[in-house]
């Protein structure tokens, strides 16, 4: 029984050694364009308006694209000034033997509940996958309350007739001081002739893709 099993598997092409990217087949969707199957026609006028506002602003794919639009340019400069205000980093030389962590821009549109645009948001994130545990960071941690705790609290508040207040912190990650020595590359789009070949040494904990709780972006 065992031997026949072995023969069977041997006859199947062994693709486990081929890199994942090559194993994936190439799919083409152009013969079935999405416009043939999805349309706005069935929607009520108000819902149609809602859906098209959501889609009305394009999210830039790169920083170059973003800097061409005044709205996104403002979002980028807001993020930069928040980072500067918190003294997140200082520009320095890269000491020999150290590797800088790459970084990239993420762009999102914040919508209000009715679909209208609240604001455009640019977010600088480090490419956390280029970090190694023990070198660039020691531990990851995010204080997250259990949903049950929140439920109990709400029930208590309801029964005792307590007020419930809500606060949120801007740039929550930028408030902790960083112990480890971490360097990141100059954010794309901010390279100038004076900071060529230099890096940013991080002073504050910032948003790492590795520790970012889902739902924060």
């Amino acid at each position: 029984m065992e031997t026949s099993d072995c023969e069977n598997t041997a006859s199947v092409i062994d693709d486990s050694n081929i890199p994942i990217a090559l194993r994936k087949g190439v799919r083409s969707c152009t013969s079935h364009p999405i416009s043939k199957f999805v349309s706005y026609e069935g929607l009520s006028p108000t819902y149609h308006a809602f859906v098209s506002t959501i889609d009305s602003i394009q999210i830039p794919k790169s920083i170059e694209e973003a800097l061409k639009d005044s709205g996104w340019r403002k979002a980028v400069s807001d993020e930069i000034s928040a980072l500067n205000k918190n003294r997140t980093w200082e520009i320095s030389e890269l000491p020999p033997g150290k590797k800088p962590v790459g970084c990239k821009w993420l762009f999102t549109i914040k919508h209000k509940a009715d679909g209208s645009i609240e604001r455009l948001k640019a977010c600088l994130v480090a490419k956390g996958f280029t970090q190694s545990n023990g070198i660039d960071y020691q531990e990851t941690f995010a204080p997250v309350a259990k949903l049950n705790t929140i439920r109990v609290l709400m029930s208590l508040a309801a029964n005792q007739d307590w007020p419930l207040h809500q606060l949120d912190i801007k740039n929550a990650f930028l408030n902790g001081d960083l112990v480890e020595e971490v360097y990141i590359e100059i954010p794309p789009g901010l390279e100038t002739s004076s900071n060529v070949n230099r890096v940013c040494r991080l002073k504050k904990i910032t948003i790492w893709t590795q520790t970012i709780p889902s739902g924060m972006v």
Partner: protein
Amino acid sequence: MSNSHTLFVKTSPEKEIAILIVYVDDFILTGDYEEELVRLKKLLAKEFEIKDLGYLKYFLGMEVARSRKGIYVS
């Protein structure tokens, strides 16, 4: 203030209570120890740049509606 990373409780000598819940960068404050709640809010505002969202309306994707009969959570 006592234990845990996410739930902080403080009681007054008169057994009034102030409760603070932390969810990453979101806080909920509740309790009947009102002067402590006010003090805590001020303290947090001094330490961090915060946005006071007033009474609880949305939290973690839940919509919270309040009436005299109780709290409705969707």
